[in-house]
């Protein structure tokens, strides 16, 4: 286990630009948890960090044809940070589905750095955040396609829902491509709950809070589609949501 630099990062470090540095100091230094999968291996990991201030940093290396399915629920912390570095070998597959639920003055962030080192690898990231009060939810995600990593398919889908005008969402999907024949898509949207949808649900008899909860539940569930633990994750996300509403 190595340490990610002994010095506490500052705001000048791009990956920590929106971090709660005071809270980070309490958990610093953050050990890097290394995970390596050999050729053809496959693993699923569910990360639901607990604690008032938490920071996790995973470094995942995927051999040729390896598959990794990571699901994250980042909720209920004064400060919660999940940083993930991934290096994909030829034909490897990486899925990251992350949901963040925060209220009050909570600061939550998911920071990913995905490197397609081999050809024909696929990565798919889905991040959904629901933020109320003066909470801040951040996604910083970089996808690098190295020279020779032709046939790469990388996708980032990032959406945040602000329940109050005082909440903040930061989203920065980035692409760096040094190969040909690459398919990389990123979409990013910050919005509020669809008023028409809310009225539609209420017109059928759902009280406003239930209509809201139902729509947000569905929104967060997009991060967990296809996970082995989909049902449990949805339940945990719902509990986090109910604490917020």
């Amino acid at each position, binding site marked *: 286990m190595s340490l990610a630099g002994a010095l506490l990062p500052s705001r000048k470090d791009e990956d920590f630009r929106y971090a709660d540095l005071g809270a980070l100091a309490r958990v610093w230094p953050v050990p890097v948890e290394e995970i390596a999968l050999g050729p053809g291996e496959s693993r699923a990991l569910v990360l639901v960090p607990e604690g008032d201030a938490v920071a996790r940093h995973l470094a995942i290396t995927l051999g040729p044809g390896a598959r990794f399915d990571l699901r994250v629920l980042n909720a209920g912390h004064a400060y919660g940070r999940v940083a993930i570095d991934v290096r994909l070998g030829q034909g490897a597959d990486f899925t990251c589905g992350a949901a963040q639920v925060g209220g009050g003055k909570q600061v939550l962030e998911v920071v990913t750095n995905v490197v397609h080192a081999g050809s024909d690898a696929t990565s798919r990231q889905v991040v959904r955040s629901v933020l109320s009060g003066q909470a801040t939810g951040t996604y910083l995600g970089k996808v690098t396609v190295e020279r020779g990593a032709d046939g790469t398919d990388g996708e980032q889908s990032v959406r945040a829902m602000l329940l109050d005008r005082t909440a903040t969402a930061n989203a920065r999907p980035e692409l760096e491509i040094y190969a040909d024949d690459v398919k990389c898509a990123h979409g990013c949207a910050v919005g509020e709950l669809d008023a*028409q949808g809310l*009225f*539609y649900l*209420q*017109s*059928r*008899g*759902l009280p*406003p809070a239930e209509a809201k909860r139902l729509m947000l539940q*569905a929104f967060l569930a997009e991060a967990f589609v296809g996970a082995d633990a989909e049902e449990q994750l949805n339940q945990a996300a719902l509990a986090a949501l109910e604490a917020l509403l």
Partner: protein
Amino acid sequence: MLQIDNLQAEVVGKPILKGLSLTVNAGEIHAIMGPNGAGKSTTGYVLGGRPGYEVTGGSVSFDGQDLLAMAPHERAAAGLFLGFQYPVEIPGVSNVQFLREALNAQRRARGVEPLSGGEFLKLAREKAGLLRMDMDMLKRPVNVGFSGGEKKRAEMVQMGILDPKLAILDETDSGLDIDALRICGEGINAIMRRPDKAVILITHYQRLLDYVKPDKVHVLAGGRIVRSGGPELAHELEREGYEAVA
């Protein structure tokens, strides 16, 4: 059942309804027809309680209660159903989950025991069958990927499951092919043509009225009812146009 008296309403400061009065009794089916911009959809939205549709005058009494004082979900629990001209898509929320929660919210509001999962599915299957809609469609997210006709049939399935006293159906016939029109018409009759229920059909055309025979037909123009009559009025409108009749 429903008494609308001198109703006035505006949308973003623009007056749309300018003194609409209408009485609907239990057991009746009324059709409101009228040209574009007459205030037909606004009437539906105001009665449903949609935000942004501001009532500036008049009153609406529903089963003796002040309808305008109620929130949208309370109106539903009191027995009002609004069929949307453009049913809204709700990604990620299945019809089954949504309708079960909606129905049970209504039942709780009325002090009735909620339905169990099994009881609800039985009810949903029966109503879907009535509208010849596959149960698999009800397991899909609300209206997502549905064709125009499927959305309207899904609305009628919702109506069947929620079993309202009064249905206000806003252009349920638009976007329907001939077969779907007949299926929706038969569905409306099967679900709503009862001595203790009433329907307001908002429509541009006579064709839906071939399947759902109205007791009364009203012409809405310029934000108020300008003429009322029996079913023959719809034929007259179809023949001669709104301008000549109203």
